[in-house]
């Protein structure tokens, strides 16, 4: 365990609206390590000799297999998109029910009394179920509006960094609401296109920043305003790729304790 604590590793700190626990741990570790680390990350890719491998300035080696290393080192837990959607379904949305029912007490909270024609806020999972059973009409959230989304998209295109999104689950909510309740949402096709444009811009920025992170051999990166779905999309790949690169680099270090073969 000692070896790992002293190891210098590139830390990716992603600051998102709801902070998932793993990255918090990663940040804590980073703060601890900054005191005694060499501050070097990876070398920029230049093939050396015939091997064509990365030159790694640090002399750390890991006895553990790489996948396990990725999880341990980055502390990043990969989530399926379905899991992110599941978490998104807890968000509240307004519906207009066509039935009446008294208040329901569930473990996660109360579901308010339902009266026909009166709007009430319910979690998305219930709204979708009621909609499929033709018992309600969905009202799109405020941000799901063509002008607002156009503004957001243009803002995103102008800025170099990530702008705050109207909802931490904007992608999942768009997909759910447009799949099941597109007849309640005006101009559904345009909304879909606008959200997709915003998503594409943000993913492009994410890729660009990951690329520059690697090239400039940074040890620490901080990205604000990322949503869970975007983190999941790039998270595993980035951390595993960096781990691989790290392994390759460390294995090329001329270390005193190992003897290289004579050619």
């Amino acid at each position, binding site marked *: 365990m000692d070896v790992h604590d002293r190891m210098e590793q590139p830390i990716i700190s992603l600051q998102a609206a709801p902070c998932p626990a793993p990255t918090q741990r990663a940040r804590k570790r980073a703060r601890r390590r900054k005191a005694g680390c060499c501050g070097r990350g990876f070398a920029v890719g230049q093939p050396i000799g015939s091997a064509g491998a990365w030159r790694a300035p640090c002399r750390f080696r890991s006895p553990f297999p790489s996948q396990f290393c990725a999880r341990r080192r980055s502390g990043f837990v990969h989530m399926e998109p379905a899991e992110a959607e599941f978490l998104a379904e807890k968000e509240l949305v307004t519906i207009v029910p066509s039935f009446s029912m008294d208040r329901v007490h569930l473990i996660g909270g109360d579901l308010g009394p339902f009266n026909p024609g009166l709007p009430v806020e319910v979690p998305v999972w219930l709204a979708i179920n009621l909609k499929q*059973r033709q018992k309600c009409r969905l009202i799109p959230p405020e941000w799901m509006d063509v002008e607002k989304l156009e503004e957001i998209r243009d803002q995103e295109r102008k800025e170099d960094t990530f702008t705050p999104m109207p909802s931490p689950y904007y992608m999942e909510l768009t997909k759910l609401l*447009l799949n099941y309740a597109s007849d309640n949402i005006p101009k*559904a096709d345009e909304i879909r296109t606008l959200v997709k444009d915003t998503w594409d811009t943000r993913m492009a920025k994410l890729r660009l920043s990951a690329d520059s992170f690697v090239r400039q051999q940074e040890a620490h990166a901080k990205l604000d305003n990322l949503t869970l779905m975007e983190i999941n999309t790039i998270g595993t790949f980035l951390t595993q790729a960096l781990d691989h690169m790290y392994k390759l680099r460390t294995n090329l270090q001329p270390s005193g304790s190992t003897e290289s073969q004579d050619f």
Partner: protein
Amino acid sequence: MFVTDCRREFYDVIVSQRVLLLVASDVDALCACKILQALFQCDHVQYTLVPVSGWQELETAFLEHKDQFKYFVFINCGANVDLLEILQPEEDTYFFVCDSHRPINIVNVYNETQIKLLVKQDDDLDVPAYDDIFRDEEDEEEESENESDGSEPSDKRRRFEEEVIERTMKRRQRREWEARRREILFDYEQYEYHGTSSAMVMFDLAWIMSKDLNDMLWWAIVGLTDQWVQDKITQMKYVTDIGILQRHVSRHNHRNEDEENSLSIDCMRIAFEYDLRLALYQHWSLYESLCNTSYTSANLKLWSVQGQKRLQEFLADMGLPLKQVKQKFNSMDMSLKENLREMIEESANKFGMRDLRVQTFSIHFGFKNKFLASDIVYATASLMESIEKEGPETTNFIKALDSLSRGNLDKLHQGLDLAKKQLRAIQQTVASCICTNLVISQGPFLYCSLMEGTPDVKLFSKPISLCLLSKYLLKSFVCSTKNKRCKLLPLIMAAPMDVEQGTVIMVGIPPETESSDKKNFFGRAFEKAADSTNSRTLHNHFDMSNCFRLSSALLRSGAFWFLVLEAEDQML
């Protein structure tokens, strides 16, 4: 008894119960079943679905399930026989019957407790009055009581004479009444026809409960179109029902005109079309469709060389190059497709085909998917009767049921391919029958029998395909023959059903006239003939007038025909 308020007397009763759905094997029943299933899913009603293709299966299913269920719903089966007698249910079992077969059995009409008919009252039902059919048993008891009254001996003889006179008069009245009853029943039950489609009845129920969706409306349209494709209803009734559905369509689909608030492209839209009656033409090439639709092929007489020439003339008259017409419809030039309908109608009028366009609806969702109602009918019917045996017998039914949902487009396309094969097979069989003069005139009717070695004969061992084949054959024969008398004759068609068991399936089609009321008398004729010859026939199909099974040996013997002729003479 007839149900007046569908919602209170039917739906509210079963919404808290477990229900058994017995669904017949035709497209109209499938659509009605889909609508009812959607309603059940909204309200979490527990149900079991049992597809039945004949009376035997119905009885078996009932016997299997009668201990577990108290509420049974029959879709497109059960109205034209005495259900209580056949099924012998318990006292607390309730039957809900939603059937388009007519005439409705009088026991079903007048039973107050157990049988509820979900039928629209304004259908021309002509049910005989209660008093004409049923006589109270109490009248007879009174008679016998009077007889046993004691009285004084002096008046006894006079009273005795009076009583004798009374009794004979009563008996005579009773005999007259019974004779009249037999006549009324005979008139009522001799012709079989079809009423409003069950899918439309179910859609009405959904509408009354304000739970109707575009999807359900589409299924109601497909159910109605199925009745038209299979020639079960008159043209007038079809047009009236289309008018009713058109109101619902505009109610659900008016948002499409408004540019501001138009719906997403993925939402389903239904549109009214005055479109060509060519089968599957948008999923096929125009040429193939012209060759394989009965209307055009019969009028142009496409089984003969001259007919082929006429077809070429027809296409030339419209200005459509052969190369364009023979490729897939979607790849035809846009300039040709723009005014296609009007052009075809004009040319068709010149060639004697005045009804080439028909009022129908089309559905449209996503960017690629556009279907006419008749396309769906052909696809679903051929899926349901496909002869590939994979898995248990109900797989075909379930596949056909699934293909009606919008999410199962691959099954629908499979159905379209099977339908194309079926239509081609029908046309080839019709052409060969007419060219080889297989249609024989047997006096009061025409007769045609398919030999076992005929190509694609296995396709015609199922009732719906065989009926389609027979109808097309009759139409083509009427166009091909010069004998004026033969044009007015009905047709009896026989095809091998199961080669190993040596059974044959037979169908009777009423004569082809301009204004036929689609009433079929063959059911009774076949039954009578079967009874008289004591032959082993199986009237299994719900359409009594059509298919029934008999052994091929019986067919070859002359006795059967003789009796059918006799029975028919009695009818006409």
